[in-house]
């Protein structure tokens, strides 16, 4: 069982992702904004972070940058779940250290496969 933190400001999506990951046997925590999410990541030290890009207070890119700057969190896999679909957005996400990138609208099956891959890596 892995610990996953879902940082997403849309409750429909965060609760659906949490529901799917719990069904897969993981322990899940949900945070609704970037700053609270980063605080939870620092405290909990999860095995994986599922991260939205556009969020209040601190966006997903800033959260990922902060994680990568912290030696103890630098290796934590990050899966970005975002509506941003331009090539430049993809490049930006990977350049700050995002490990996987899923575009919204998304498939929960694809999400589950990518999560397992990241947790198994």
């Amino acid at each position, binding site marked *: 069982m892995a610990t996953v933190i879902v940082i997403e400001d849309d409750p*429909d*999506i965060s*609760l*659906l992702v949490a529901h799917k990951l719990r069904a897969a046997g993981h322990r899940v925590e949900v945070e609704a904004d970037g700053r609270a999410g980063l605080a939870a990541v620092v405290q909990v030290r999860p095995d994986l972070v599922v991260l939205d890009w556009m969020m209040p207070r601190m966006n997903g890119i800033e959260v990922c940058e902060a994680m990568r700057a912290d030696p103890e969190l630098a290796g934590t896999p990050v899966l970005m779940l975002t509506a941003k679909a331009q090539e430049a957005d993809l490049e930006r996400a990977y350049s700050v250290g995002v490990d996987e990138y899923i575009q919204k*609208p998304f*498939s*929960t*099956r*694809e999400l589950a496969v990518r999560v397992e891959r990241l947790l198994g890596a």
Partner: protein
Amino acid sequence: MNWQCVWSDCWEPEIVTPGVETVATVILVASTVLVLVLVLAVVSLRALSAVKGVVTSRRTAAARAVIFAVIDGDPPRAPRGPVRRAAVAATAVRLSTKLRGADRAALARWLTDEGFRHRATVMMHATFAISRARGARLFVACLADRETGPLLDLLHDRDVRVRAVAARALGECGISSAVPFLVRAAASHENPLPVSAAAMAIVHTAPRSARGLGMAWGSGDPAVASMAADVAGYLHLTDARERLERLLNSGEPEVVASAARALARLGDPRSAAAISTRLVDGDLPAQVRNGLHVAFADLHHVRFES
């Protein structure tokens, strides 16, 4: 010194008549009652809205549980009561735009099987615009087989909000075959679709070629021609270059500015010649001229200083 004597010299007793005293008392009591009533009203409203919030959030949680079960492949029966059905419909509408693939198909199938699609069709013919708009959103949530006919009809609805909702719904479905209908609705003289709504919907459907924008390129309506240019630039439709260069010769400053912006986004240096030719024209407004200079500079990867 006799202070009492001094006081008695200076002090003049206040003259108060019994009538004035009564009026003052009445005003005081009335104000107190009014303040109390207002405080009670505020407290009651807050309590009511808190209760309503709790009830709504419980209803939404229950609706989410139903929809999640549908997505999990274990579909329950839809609730019977109209309020709970409405909550399920609203949740399904919200989630359907965030899902794709098998999840979306499962949700659409379940909504159809449980009668929500029929309900949506009825709502789309309702008297009130808000009901028609809600019907359009629910209808899209029920779509798995891309039957867009009723939505295309709503692009010409008598209420602009319904037209915009129908356009957004088509965009969210990603139905590229709807693009010509969106363009036609935007260019229509009667009940036109707002150009911004058409543009957003077209960007969502993401046509892969400039040809997909069809009649928008030759539209006499500058807003529609500008929309074609903006969309082509935003979606980086490289085959739009020649059409955009032709739009540079438009008599409408708005169209010229959009075409220049789009050409800069495409970044093909071959367009620099067309832009510099247009700059020779001295009749252009300063803002458009500035836009052309910026586009020209962008194509040469230099910064334009106005």
